[in-house]
């Protein structure tokens, strides 16, 4: 079973960052991603998704621990200080591990 354990990295951030983020994910070796629209509250206050400007996205990336590390680092270095962003990861068992 072990060989089908992968990391599920979840990034919650600003909608305005979507296209940039998607490019980063590709360059960092993620084979895919899933995005859902979200709203929420955090240290940068309420983001109620009343319009694009204060809408959030919830990005999920299934990948290897290494890729997750790399993405995490890139987010920390380039985006954390300036964008509404929260990130967390956990191990999940995937079907078709070769995909990720």
């Amino acid at each position, binding site marked *: 079973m072990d060989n089908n354990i992968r990391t599920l990295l979840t990034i919650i951030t*600003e909608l*305005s*960052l979507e296209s*940039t983020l998607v490019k980063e994910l590709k360059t960092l070796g993620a084979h895919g991603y899933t995005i859902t629209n979200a709203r929420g509250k955090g240290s*940068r*206050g*309420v983001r*109620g*998704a*009343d*319009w*694009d*400007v204060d*809408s959030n996205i919830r990005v999920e990336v299934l990948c290897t621990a290494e890729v997750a590390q790399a993405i995490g680092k890139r987010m920390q270095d380039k*985006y954390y*200080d*300036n*964008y509404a962003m929260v990130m967390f990861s956990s191990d999940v068992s995937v079907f078709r591990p070769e995909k990720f």
Partner: protein
Amino acid sequence: MTDPIILFFLFGIIAGLLKSELRLPAQIYDFVSVLLLLAIGLKGGIELAKQPFLTLLPQMVSVFIMGIVLTLIAFPVLLYWGKFKRADAASIAAHYGSVSVGTFAVAVAYMNNNGISFEEHMPLLLVILEIPAILVGIILVRGITKQTQWGKVIHEVFAGRGIMLLLGGLVIGWISGSENLSTITPLFFDLFKGILALFLLEMGLIAASKMSALRQYGIFLIAFGIAMPLLSSVIGTALGLLLGLSIGGTAILATLAASASYIAVPAAMRISVPEANPTLSLTASLGISFPFNVLIGIPLYYEMAVGAHSLFALS
């Protein structure tokens, strides 16, 4: 007699401040603003079709320059008096050097309501005025260095939804001319005022949410959010006179100058000057200046235009 669309805006603000359950899904905001932007572009394009483009060049150039000037005036004020970080000062300045489509639409409605004629190609100037402030704002922070990816910036500016739709409408209107567009006028022109009313209702709700953030940024931002539009409107009026615009046209140019962006500039700054705090600029632009311009500014700027014109006996 106040225009009902203003009442829709007030209704939105009140509903927002009352913390009512009146929240509209973002998709409705999208739909309504797409219709507005296309309609404004189409209206402007139809007018462009009527006159040789080159005759407008002087206006276009001077309006472009005005955008630069307004940003360069706002920046030091924010930096030294406002004590804002350089990035924030530049970002806020860019917002005020650019324009607000919503404010423009209300100004146009005001003119129509009072039967005041104006140069119908104003949407063209609107589009042009959106742009320079963004570039200046970025330069003020990054300087004119190699590593700024200008290509990306330009794309960011022109590929943004707001400008895309305005430009698209302009070009389509320009190519088609009014009689060709007659079949689509029921949606884009006849419904315009009603759609604008819905838009202002939503803007009221959003403005209210920004107002709640006001106290934490203190008095300076409020003062700036009112003083800057007033100053800009004077500059806009002066330029209107120089360009020999009609009274209505002058008043609208003053309104364009006075208005602060809340679509194109925030989007561009978020990508190109991310260290600037967007809450600051949006609180000023949406929480203060937009309501001020819509409720008080526009009639004021019109009076100013009347006064200026009579003063210089231009009309």
